[in-house]
């Protein structure tokens, strides 16, 4: 069953990617048009922009989330009281349906009545055009993403932090390590496998980001927050171009793989130094 649920759609996807699908008399007509689909891909300006935005979005949001999630995980495991409460509080954002997050944040970002601008007003800062300015919009989306997904990273890493061998950390402390050294030389290296998994799945999820962008900006203003899955949605779904959409989807997978691979290389290059 599981195989069918995964393999069949995938094969279908590949087949679609080299076809053009139209409907006649309420039935599908598949035409084999690989060249045309690829040409479309090559000349798809918006896809390129979307890819770039997605990469920026993923790199920034995932790295911020990892840093914050790790920080929170370590802080929470370092406190002695209220651990349970804090942990529960910290995972609330992932409990909220993305669609609610999108709409409620767009309300919060509201230019005129949004609570964020209200707050800024109290401390004497002029209201910001969070979602409406091309320079800010992507950042605003990233902020929401960070808020939404940091708990994910936190949860994964917290479980791992709690299992770290205490005597090793004590040994480091006696060896003269301060909190900083313990963090960077002991905890983070020991957490590497968990960080890796968190990074992996956060990156994949970030590459697939849709709900937040769709509800907050729909890719606008202009193309400033256009991301690949939004583009895919428009092509595959709104424009009903299933063949090209499938190819796009495969291109996105390839891009994700490439992205992860580059990330891995960058990671090991960093480690060398």
């Amino acid at each position, binding site marked *: 069953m599981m195989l069918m649920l995964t393999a069949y759609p995938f094969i279908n996807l590949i087949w679609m990617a080299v076809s053009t699908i139209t409907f006649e008399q309420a039935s599908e007509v598949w035409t084999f048009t690989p060249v045309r689909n690829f040409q479309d891909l090559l000349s798809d300006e918006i896809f390129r922009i979307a890819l770039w935005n997605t990469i920026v979005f993923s790199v920034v949001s995932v790295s911020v989330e990892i840093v914050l999630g790790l920080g*929170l995980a370590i802080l929470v495991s370092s406190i002695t009281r209220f651990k349970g409460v804090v942990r529960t509080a910290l995972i609330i*954002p992932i409990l909220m*349906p993305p669609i*609610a997050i999108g709409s409620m944040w767009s309300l919060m970002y509201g230019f005129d009545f949004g609570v964020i601008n209200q707050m800024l007003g109290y401390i004497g800062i002029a209201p910001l055009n969070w979602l409406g300015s091309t320079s800010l919009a992507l950042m605003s989306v990233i902020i929401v993403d960070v*808020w939404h997904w*940091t708990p994910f990273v936190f949860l994964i890493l917290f479980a791992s932090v709690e299992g770290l061998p205490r005597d090793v*950390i004590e040994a480091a402390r006696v060896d003269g390590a301060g909190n900083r050294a313990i963090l960077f030389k002991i905890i983070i290296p020991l957490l590497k496998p968990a960080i*890796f998994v968190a990074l992996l799945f956060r990156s994949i999820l970030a590459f697939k980001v849709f709900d937040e962008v769709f509800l907050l900006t729909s890719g606008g203003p202009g193309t400033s927050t256009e991301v690949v899955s939004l583009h895919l949605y428009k092509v595959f779904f709104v424009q009903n171009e299933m063949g090209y959409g499938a190819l796009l*989807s495969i291109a996105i997978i390839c891009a994700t793989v490439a992205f992860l691979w580059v990330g891995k290389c960058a990671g090991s290059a960093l480690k060398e130094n």
Partner: protein
Amino acid sequence: MLALRGYSRLIGYALLGLGVAIIIAPFLWISLQSFKFEIDILQGSWIFNPTLTNYTDVLYSRRSDFPVNIWNSLVVATVSTIFVLIIGTLAAYSLSRLKWNKYIAGGFLGWTLLFNMISPLTLIGPWYLIFREVGLSESLTALVLIHITLHMPMTIWLMMSYFNEVPKDIEDAAMMDGCRRIDVFWKIALPLVKPGLIAAGVLSFVFSWNEFAAALNLTSMDTATVPVAIARFAQQYEIQYGQMASASVLSTIPALFLMFFGQRFVVQGLTMGAVK
């Protein structure tokens, strides 16, 4: 982990406090909105007449079968999480401890990742067809199966990383004590990765709880889940913020509760497993 004493204790707690505040402030704000009339929400008023209309509307209006939706979500999320945890931990354990052929294991893990990258948009169609063929369309079973499939990869990967942290020595000792592999898994490895198991469970539950694309297409009015119901408040031309807020609160709270009890259940199950 870190020693928070004196000065660094202050900073630590301050940072943590700030983090918690930033994370829950929006939620509290949203909860606040759920007690406002829409006009107060729109105007961002802080002083307003509190009302429960949003809640009554969400819970009792004809369009929104919210209690039913919550029930559906509970069923789907709980059942799929249980299955995901069982299958996922077993798979993860066997991958991390049994000597699998490198290519088979690598291929399997790679495939789970790749599958995770596919946009759900392109998957829904085939799934819809499959379930119509086998006569499961619009049933919760279909949704459960999909959620199991969707959330399995992450669970496997996560649990693998947690299992790898278990000292091999301890498992060896259990083998000496007369455990079969499966006993080692149940009685030693699983209890030792309890925090990880809970994390994976929470994530699988949450993802299932919030999954929208498949839930929308594979359910009907009777079997719709919470996210689908909530999405109805984002109607054409108008987002019904009040109802949206109250529905979010209503959706978050059972999830919180369930996770809380779920954790207990997991913990208890494991202790029982260890005793038996």
